[in-house]
């Protein structure tokens, strides 16, 4: 009897190992999506009534020529195993009734100790309403996730980031991007990663959502 | 002239049908002999038993009583009842049938319809080629047509060709012109006469048509299941 009970019990455990293990080890799936879009959309756009989720990749939307233009605007190439032409991106179109009132978009970026997920909430003109670290792995993560840090991004647009050099980590003196302070000096890598992620995010939004204006 | 052999013989044949509790004798004590090469017509009013008789002579039905022999071989007597398979063997050896309704297969062409019996049985000496037969019957230009494209007269001629393909000893024709007009009926009569006179085929004919009956050498009148003359 005891043996049968143990057998039954071990089966259940094994089942749960099989079924459950992978589920909670992973956090977000491939691509960068909001973990709780209902909550986050309400948070960033309290006046919204709903949202629409769209998916796109650079490969689908213009292919190699598109990628080349993105890289020129970014001032850097797509690097590594995970930043590729067919990486899927999720975009959220925020609605009030039938009117589009803004967008939310997130990108993955390589951080010092793990993946960084940077989400931007933009208005119709492409100005940042909110900056949000959905994920960051760093000893000073608390400082980076402080609202004060995010507040530095509010009101900025792609135009502000055009002059930001993602490789050198330098902005045009006197520009609004140059004014962004790193609250955690030992997290310089992640700070610069966040800025690169922001610039890339704004470029992708410009292309996928706001209408690609040539020469911009 | 030497007497030709007896091909068909019926002795005191009686056929009774049961309708509910009633028994009706369609044929009552008929005896009949037919020699090779004869052309016999059976006439009489409706219900006189002529079709019943010809069915029994043609081994399509068992009599209730009496003896029937075909080619000297006893087919029916009071103690013998042949199975469907045995009857089929006798039928396909001796008989060719022509009916009032033509019963052609609608999805087969004229040629295929005529050759159909050969799919089941090929008698020794049977026609290797149906074309001469069809030409004789005036159907040489219609061999690839389907029954739906033929007139009534043409369809009956196809049925005749089909009945003849296996070189039967005896042709049984039951009201072959029942569905045809006068002109076509006359043509059928001429064909039957040619088969009998020229080819030596024994013909048993049932008909309402006196002109057609007159083509025969011998006419038997039936009434109420008995031979009158």
């Amino acid at each position, binding site marked *: 009897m005891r043996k049968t009970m143990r057998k039954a019990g071990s089966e259940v455990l094994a089942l749960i190992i099989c079924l459950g293990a992978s589920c*909670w080890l992973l*956090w977000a799936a491939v691509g960068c999506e909001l973990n709780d879009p209902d909550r986050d959309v309400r948070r960033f756009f309290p006046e919204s009534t709903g949202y629409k989720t769209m998916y796109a990749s650079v490969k689908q939307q213009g292919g190699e020529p598109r990628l080349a233009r993105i890289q020129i605007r970014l001032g850097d190439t797509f690097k590594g195993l995970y930043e590729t032409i067919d990486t899927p991106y999720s975009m959220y179109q925020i609605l009030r009734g039938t009117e589009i009132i803004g967008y939310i978009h997130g990108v993955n970026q390589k951080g010092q100790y*793990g993946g960084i997920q940077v989400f931007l909430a933009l208005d119709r003109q492409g100005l940042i309403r909110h900056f949000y670290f959905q*994920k960051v792995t760093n000893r000073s993560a608390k400082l980076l996730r402080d609202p004060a840090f995010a507040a530095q991004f509010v009101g900025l647009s792609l135009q502000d980031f055009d002059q930001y050099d993602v490789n050198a980590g330098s902005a045009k003196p006197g520009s609004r991007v140059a004014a962004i302070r790193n609250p955690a000096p030992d997290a310089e890598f992640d700070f610069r990663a966040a800025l690169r992620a922001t610039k890339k995010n704004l470029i992708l939004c410009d292309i996928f959502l706001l209408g690609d204006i040539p020469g911009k | 002239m030497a007497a030709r052999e007896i091909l068909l013989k019926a002795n005191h044949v009686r056929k009774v049908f049961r309708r509910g509790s009633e028994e009706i004798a369609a044929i009552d004590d008929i005896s009949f002999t037919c020699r090779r090469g004869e052309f016999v017509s059976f006439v009489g009013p409706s219900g006189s038993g002529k079709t019943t008789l010809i069915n029994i002579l043609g081994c399509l039905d068992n009599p209730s009583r009496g003896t029937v022999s075909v080619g000297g071989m006893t087919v029916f007597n009071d103690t013998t009842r042949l199975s469907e398979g045995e009857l089929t063997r006798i039928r396909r050896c001796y008989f060719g049938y022509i009916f009032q309704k033509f*019963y052609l297969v609608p*999805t087969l062409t004229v040629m295929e319809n005529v050759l159909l019996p050969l799919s089941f049985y090929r008698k020794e000496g049977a026609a290797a080629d149906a074309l001469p037969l069809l030409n004789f019957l005036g159907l040489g230009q219609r061999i690839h047509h389907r029954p739906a494209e033929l007139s009534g007269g043409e369809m009956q001629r196809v049925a005749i060709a089909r009945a003849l393909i296996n070189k039967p000893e005896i042709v049984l024709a039951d009201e072959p012109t029942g569905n045809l007009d006068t002109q076509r009926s006359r043509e059928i009569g001429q064909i039957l006469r040619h088969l009998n006179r020229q080819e030596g085929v024994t013909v048993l004919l049932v008909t309402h048509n006196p002109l057609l009956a007159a083509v025969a050498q011998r006419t038997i009148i039936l009434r109420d299941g008995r031979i009158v003359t």
Partner: protein
Amino acid sequence: MTKPLSIYRIAFKNLQRKKARSTLTLIGIGLSAWVLTSLFGFNQGYETALNKDIDNMGFQVLLTAKGCPYEAATLMLKGGTGLRYMPESVISDVVRYPGIEKVTPMLMQAVFDPNKGESGGISAYLGVDPASYPQLKAFLSFEQGSWFTDPLGYQAVMGYEAAELEQREIGDKILIPEKNIEFTVVGVLKRSGTQDDGTIFIPIRTLQKEFGQQGKVTALGIKVSKTANIIELENKLYDLPDVQVVSMAQVRETIMSLVSTAKVMVISIALIAILIAILGVINTILMSVFERFQEIGILKSMGAMPADVFRMVWTETVILCLLGGMLGVGLAFGLAKITDFLIRRLLPYAPTGSLVQVNLPLALLILVIVLGIGLISGLYPAWWAARVRPLESIRSEGD
């Protein structure tokens, strides 16, 4: 031109008389054959995929710490703290048993990462022995790098999806929150379609040291030699105190029995579909035989034996069923992917890999079954037609 038709050609032409009716019956048989093929294909595919998943675990038997399995599972799902442990000495107990080929210890530890998402999340790490674990999982291949070799080192190997989430490549660092320890990534695995994709592997000794779990393991993976009797071995292992034996063979059986309920339901539906198809075929052929009542009588009068008529009608049924069967098998081949997708949505657990395996032997089996259906369905109509007496059909002309 003057060759008579064979009975088979006659049968085929007979089917063309009422094209709509024949077509509809054909479609009915085709759909039944499709269902049957997909069902058998699913049966094959699911079992193969499941076996592959389980075989990919590398070990046939798993030993875990004794305790209420539900409690352990809940703890695992909600958070790694409070996991039950086994003493490492269990290894020396286990290797004594005959039939044990390899043993590898594993330690699962988890920490809470407050910076994962809005309210934080769990990060889990699997401590493995670099000497034995890679050998048990020899089929795992690397996108970059290879296994760590130093049992006391601070290196990590990541499953592809875990690495992608963290945007890690070899040479990059990972940080264990709470413990504040850094590891260097030395290998990124290729996707295997198993839970390894989401796992971060670390040397077990290092994990034990950093988490204060020296001498403890959460599981022992056992590979049984090919000649050993697994059931007998499992029974012996049950006798070990404080351990729970998890048999992958039993997991397979349990999952299969979960699925078998669904399969029984589907088989019942398939059998009903076959029955309906049979009835449809009988109906079609019987109707066509009734319609040709007089014609069959005439065939008999022109020399067709009862066996000839039987063969002709039976052939019509067989032709109909074979054509329908080919249609169904063709549909199954063509729509295998869609069927796979539909089934995946319905099942509670679907292993990776193709769920619906449709191949040539299966196609031939289905055609044989459909042929059998045809032969059975055709018996009554063919027998009925063979029994027709010519006179019965001619008698309707009147006297």
